């Protein structure tokens, strides 16, 4: 196969791959659905925390929350304070989330994520 034909073939593959990924953006939703079925705390967590702490709270760039966060912060006010003003590499969320939203996402980490 000549290089020119290979390039043409790869370009077709690239076009198909691009169209597939665009299609998947709209049709591929997780089984648990999102939208109205999800609690506000879960939505806030997904939008603001999952990047670093992982979708299920098992940690990624940021530390693990699932199963450990209640042990680390027995007083819920301490965890709320960390989310509000930030700590080490974690940014402050006081300007991004309301006090009520911070409370909801903290509750979510302590209950649904298995605190």
């Amino acid at each position: 196969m000549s290089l020119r034909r290979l390039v043409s073939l790869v370009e077709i593959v690239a076009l198909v791959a691009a169209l597939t990924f665009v299609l998947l953006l709209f049709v591929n939703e997780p089984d648990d659905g999102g939208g109205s079925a999800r609690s506000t705390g879960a939505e806030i967590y997904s939008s603001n925390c999952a990047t670093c702490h992982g979708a299920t709270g098992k940690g990624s760039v940021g530390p693990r929350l699932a199963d450990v966060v209640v042990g680390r912060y027995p007083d819920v006010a301490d965890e709320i304070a960390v989310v509000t003003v930030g700590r080490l590499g974690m940014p402050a969320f006081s300007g991004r989330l309301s006090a009520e939203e911070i409370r909801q996402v903290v509750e979510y980490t302590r209950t649904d994520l298995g605190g």
Partner: protein
Amino acid sequence: MTAPAIERRDSAVPRLLGVFLWGAAVSVALGVYAGSHTPTGEKPYSLFFSGTLQLKVWFTTAAFVLACLQVLLAMRLYGKLRRPATAPSWLGDAHRLSGTVAFVLSLPVAYHCLWSLGYQSTTTRVVVHSIVGCIFYGAFVAKVLSVRMEGLPGWTLPVVGGLVFASLVAIFLTSSVWYFTDRPAGLPLF
């Protein structure tokens, strides 16, 4: 200035505007999707890497290396580099191939960013990464159109190509380089 030259300039303006508008539309559409779609937070693939994050870091790095190669090949094609003294006949095809493969490598990375993470503004790095990621694909579409379309001013392709490369460099710096240098202890490199 002669009349044909003025005519050429007049006919180039709508084409140039079309290229710009298509590129801008793609960037804005991606930004709107990233901002409005509820992030799934899922990690759908890792191949032979330890996780999706590591896959994205290395795919981005590979795309960056290929983009550097593509720029060098373009510089030789347009005579900005003099080595090798005689340009091989396959130079143009190699230029196209390296760019196309870099684009393909970027797709699973962008898909995860858009679908799983969405637009984020937690830190300056993340804001810059989100915005430049959208600009990259708009610039890429503008570049492909510039290559295919005739009658555009001679500066169009280098400017749009430069924007594609610059945005990819910014993406690389705010993701892979950050991961290589600042990742928290315990996260695997691969």
